[in-house]
């Protein structure tokens, strides 16, 4: 095998599904030696895919350089290149894929296309030392409750429309809250919600195992515009309602699968209130509760690198001509040969 340093093999992973461009480096043993993230912050409104992609292409070489420096290796020390092939925003994905293809061709090493959602689960298992968890992955783009069964990560419940993080982000923006650098907009809701006391009724929409947040968001925005309620009470009610919904679905997946671990990941995993709710149901069902540290809960290159290692060592490679990005690549479409 090409590219070894002191007997170690390295995989470089590129993540660029949405607003973050990130490069991570992992050894074949799962030692993360670099994880550099550069987030695109819109001047106003939400993420514009083309603007975000422009940010990615502008920072790519700088971030790559930083990652190599951090890991203390040279490009020639790499054995494989992994990249997030989907799901995500087209222009952003294509930027990352282009960088990955160029590197793999130049270094003449294999390329591995990785599913972004699988990567969140795999880095979660690696970092929290879980084996077979029910995973709640909540971010600005995804709200998925999944668990492994017969060769794949099955989706037990998900959003029928927008993601939970998106719901919080949009509400925060509508309420004129301020986004802190390095944090999602929705994080501002958490702070204000802590002061709220009065529960305002909002639609609680759990349909079977799936959830819907769009009607609830509209209702919350309408109440906000009416100006009859305190913002802290609205934030509090919004959080309580949406988190109760995902917690109910996660608990049902836990009861159904009878698994003994719960993993909370994604950008919203940083929310303390959500953590306490998921922790409570884990306890109820005698399951171990694990929450990802922020660095690895948000979109990051390390998760792509590590999943690339798992895939590659189990025979998965992506020839360049098949490395087109897959905007709507569902979690359950991916075969997982490394889990037995």
């Amino acid at each position, binding site marked *: 095998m090409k590219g070894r340093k002191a007997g170690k093999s390295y995989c470089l992973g590129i993540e660029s599904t949405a607003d973050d461009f990130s490069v991570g480096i992992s050894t074949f043993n799962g030692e993360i030696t670099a994880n550099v993230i550069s987030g695109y912050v819109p001047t106003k409104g939400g993420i514009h895919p083309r603007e975000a992609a422009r940010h990615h292409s502008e920072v790519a070489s700088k971030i790559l350089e930083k990652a190599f420096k951090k890991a203390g290796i040279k490009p020639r020390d790499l054995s494989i290149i992994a990249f997030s092939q989907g*799901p995500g925003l087209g222009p952003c994905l294509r930027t990352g894929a282009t960088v990955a293809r160029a590197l793999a061709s130049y270094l003449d090493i294999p390329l591995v296309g990785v599913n972004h959602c699988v990567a969140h689960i795999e880095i979660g298992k690696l970092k929290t030392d879980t084996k077979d968890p029910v995973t709640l992955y909540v971010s600005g783009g995804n709200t998925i409750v999944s668990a492994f069964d*017969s060769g794949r990560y099955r989706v037990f419940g998900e959003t029928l429309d927008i993601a939970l993080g998106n719901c919080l982000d949009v509400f925060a923006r509508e309420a004129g809250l301020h986004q802190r650098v390095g944090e999602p907009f929705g994080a501002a809701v958490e702070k204000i919600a802590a002061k709220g006391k009065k529960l305002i009724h909002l639609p*609680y929409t759990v349909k*079977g195992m799936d959830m819907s947040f769009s009607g609830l968001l509209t209702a919350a925005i309408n109440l906000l515009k009416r100006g009859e309620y305190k913002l802290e009470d609205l934030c509090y009610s919004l959080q*309580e309602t949406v988190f109760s919904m995902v*917690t109910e679905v996660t608990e*049902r997946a836990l*009861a159904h699968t009878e698994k003994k671990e719960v993993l909370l990941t994604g950008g919203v995993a940083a929310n303390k209130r959500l953590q306490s709710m998921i922790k409570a*149901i884990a306890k109820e069902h005698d399951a171990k509760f694990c929450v990802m540290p922020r660095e690895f809960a948000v979109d990051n290159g390390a998760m792509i690198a590590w999943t690339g290692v798992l895939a590659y060592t189990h025979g998965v490679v992506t020839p360049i001509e098949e490395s087109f990005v897959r905007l*709507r690549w569902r979690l359950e479409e991916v075969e997982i040969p490394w889990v037995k």
Partner: protein
Amino acid sequence: MKPPLLIKKGAEASLYLADWHGRKVIMKKRLPKKYRVSELDEQIKTYRTIHEPQLIHEAKKAGVPTPTIFLVDVKGATIVMEFIEGKQAKQLLSEVSKSERQRLCFKIGELIGRLHKYGIIHGDLTTSNMILNPEGKIFFVDFGLGEKSKELEVRGVDLHLMKRALQSTHFRFAEEYFNAVIEGYSKVLGSETVKNVLEKIGEIEKRGRYIAERKKGE
């Protein structure tokens, strides 16, 4: 009298098998969820405790076998209902022959059709919520997430959930099962309604995240 025996600790409620005035009954008790704030917990519990028996009762009128309701205790968030002996469709489907599987799914589809025709939405159509008794009747249970509606959208979501449940629990035969369900459903509601509902399901799926079919419409 034997004390109630916990037979299933679900996420939403606990089910106890009990002896109630000489009858073998299921006591469905919605326990407070510590993760939710008490007002929200109270709202959800009360709403579901009242609505579930209503829907279970209505379903009978629609010609769908459901347990008999004996007692509703709103304060205690408990429903006392008939215990249905039998096997869950979930288990049954993996044990029987192909033709029997198709017959069962057809029958399930027919029952869903009857509910929808009568304006009842089950809200949680999974094969764990359908029980085949020794006389060969299929009972529907757990209407806790149900509602009354004849809207195409809501019917579509209901069937979409059935499809999703089949995909996650019976992924090997999900398509075969779902097609049989739709055939049975079509028998009750007619091909015109089925066409509309199927179109709606397609639309709902495309609304979902990361669905390959959505590309075509873009």
